[in-house]
C-alpha cells in the first residue's frame, strides 16, 4: 500500500506539471490572462473530465468482462455516441441525451452479438465491438460525404479536440462525471470479483446481470459526455488501466482513482503534442491518442496469446 501511495503522489505531481505546461506553452508565447482563462484553462478541465471518464470506463469494462482488450472505443460506445450527436443535430436537439442513448445502444448491441448461448468470450467481444465500430465509422463517412456542407464542422469535431468553451456544458458534464466516478468506485469490489468469472461472482452473491447493466449505464453516460465534449478519442481507456495495473496491482479500489489521474495526464500530454508538434496547425486529438495507443494495443494483443 505504501508503494501505491507513492504512485498516487507521482501521478498528482505529473498532473500538475502537465497542467502548467498546457497553460504556459503553446502556439502563442507569453499568453495574456485573457487567453489563459478563456482558451487554456477550459482545456485542462476538459482533459480532466474526458481523461477520467474514458480511463475509468475502460477499467470497469475490462473488469466486468474479464477482458483486458476492451474500452469505450473498441466496444463501439464512442462511435455510438457520435451517431447520437449527428442525429441530435440533424433533428435539432441538444447533443447529450442522444449521445447517451446511442452510446448505450451500441454497447448493448455489440455485447449481444458477441453472445452465444448466453456467454461471451473475450475474443468474440472484441471482434463484435471492432466490427460494429468499423460499421458505424463507415456510416459516419457516408453521412459526411452526402451532407458535407452542413456538417463539415462536426466532422472535425468528431476527430477529437479540447476546444469546447461553453462553461455551462462543461459544468454540467463535470457534475455528471463526478457522479459516474463515485458510482463506479462504489462497485470496485464487485468489479474485482466478477473479473474471476460470472459463476464465481454469482456464488459470492453478486448478480452478474445486474452488475453488467449498471456498468453499461455508467459507461454509456461517461462515454457520451466525453464524445459530446470532445469527439471520439480512442485508446485512453484501453492503455491507462494497463499501465497502472503493471505498477500497482489490480484492485479496482486503487485502480479506479489512479485511472482518473492517469487518464487525465495522458490526455493533457496528447493535447499538448496535438497543439505543439505541427504548430500553428492543431492535430486532431483522436489521431494523437491513436498514434500513441495502437502500438501498445498490438503489444497487448501479442502478449495475450
Amino acid at each position, binding site marked *: 500500500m505504501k508503494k501505491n501511495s507513492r504512485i498516487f503522489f507521482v501521478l498528482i505531481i505529473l498532473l500538475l506539471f502537465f497542467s502548467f505546461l498546457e497553460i504556459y506553452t503553446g502556439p502563442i508565447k507569453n499568453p495574456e490572462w485573457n487567453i489563459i482563462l478563456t482558451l487554456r484553462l477550459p482545456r485542462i478541465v476538459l482533459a480532466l473530465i474526458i481523461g477520467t471518464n474514458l480511463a475509468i470506463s475502460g477499467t470497469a469494462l475490462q473488469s466486468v468482462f474479464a477482458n483486458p482488450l476492451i474500452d469505450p472505443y473498441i466496444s463501439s460506445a464512442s462511435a455510438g455516441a457520435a451517431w447520437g450527436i449527428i442525429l441530435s443535430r440533424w433533428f435539432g436537439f441538444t447533443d447529450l441525451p442522444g449521445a447517451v442513448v446511442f452510446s448505450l445502444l451500441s454497447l448493448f448491441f455489440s455485447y449481444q452479438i458477441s453472445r452465444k*448461448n448466453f456467454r461471451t468470450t473475450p475474443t468474440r467481444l472484441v471482434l463484435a465491438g471492432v466490427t460494429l465500430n468499423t460499421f458505424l465509422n463507415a456510416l459516419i463517412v457516408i453521412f459526411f460525404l452526402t451532407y458535407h456542407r452542413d456538417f463539415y464542422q462536426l466532422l472535425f469535431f468528431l476527430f477529437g479536440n479540447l476546444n469546447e468553451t461553453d462553461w455551462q456544458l462543461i459544468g454540467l458534464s463535470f457534475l455528471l462525471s463526478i457522479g459516474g466516478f463515485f458510482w463506479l468506485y462504489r462497485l470496485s*469490489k464487485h468489479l*474485482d*470479483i466478477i473479473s*474471476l468469472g460470472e459463476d464465481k461472482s*454469482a456464488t*459470492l452473491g453478486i448478480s452478474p446481470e445486474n452488475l453488467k447493466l449498471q456498468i453499461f449505464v455508467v459507461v454509456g453516460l461517461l462515454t457520451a459526455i466525453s464524445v459530446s465534449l470532445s469527439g471520439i478519442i480512442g485508446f485512453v481507456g484501453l492503455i491507462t488501466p494497463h499501465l497502472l*495495473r503493471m505498477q500497482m*496491482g*489490480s484492485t479496482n479500489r486503487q485502480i479506479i482513482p489512479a485511472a482518473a489521474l492517469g487518464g487525465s495526464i495522458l490526455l493533457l500530454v496528447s493535447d499538448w503534442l496535438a497543439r505543439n508538434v505541427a504548430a500553428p496547425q492543431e492535430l486532431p486529438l483522436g489521431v494523437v491518442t491513436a498514434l500513441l495507443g495502437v502500438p501498445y494495443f498490438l503489444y497487448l494483443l501479442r502478449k495475450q496469446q
Partner: protein
Amino acid sequence: MIKIKDLYFSYDGKDILQKINLDISSGITAILGKNGAGKTTLLKCLAQLLRYSGEILYRELNLKKLSLKKLAKILSYLPADIASIYDFSVKEIIAMGMYPTARYSGKLRQDILLMFDLKKFLDRPINTLSSGERQMVFLAQTFVQDTPIILLDEPTNHLDIWGRNKLFSIVNQLKKEKPDISVIFTTHNIEEALNHSDNFVFLHEQSVRFQGKPENVFSSAWLNDFRQHNQEIQAGLENLLKGGQDNVS
C-alpha cells in the same frame, strides 16, 4: 441434508441430465462419471448457476427461490480451471471469498491460511505462483466463504499427490469441526473417489447409475487394501525423494 427431486436439464435441445433424484448427506460426496456424463452440469445446478427444472432442497429450503445473497451464505463453489486474468495478490484473492460475510474488509481467517500453508505467499501476485499453488489459493478462497455446502468442480486439477492429500486432509479436518457440512466434488478419477469420499454418485447416460458408500460396491477388505496400497505408493515416493534407494514396496 440435500435433496434433489426430479431434476432435468437440457441445453441446445439436448438432454444433459434426466430425472435426477438424489439424497446427499453431510460429509464428502464424489460425483463420478465419464467425460460428458454431466458431472459439472449437476454441480452447476446445485450451485444454482443453471436453469433446471425440478427442485433442490437444503433443509427444506428450496434453493431456487433464494436470492443470490442468501445463497452465498449457504453454498460456495469452485469452478473448474478458475484463473485470474489480472494479477491480484494472494491476500486479495482469498479476501474476495469473505465478501458475503465480511464484505471482504475483515481480517483473513487465519485457520484456513494455516491449513493451506499460504502465509508465505500472501503478498505474491497470484500469477507468479505455480498452477498447483494457484489452485490451492482458489480452494482457500472457496473455504473462507464458510458455507455448509461446498461445491468443488475438479478440485484436484493441477494438484500433485501431496496437494491432493493435503486438500482432503483439510476437508476432513473441517468435517470434524463442523459435522454438518457437505463437500461435493466432481472427479473422473476413481481412485480419488475411493480414497477420499464418504459417498459417491455415479452418473451415466444422463442419469444416476449408482449412489452410496464405496463399501456397497467393493468389499471392505478390498477397499482397505486399496487405500493402504495408495498410502504405500506415496510413502515409497517420499522415500525416493529423500534419496533412499530402498525398493518401493
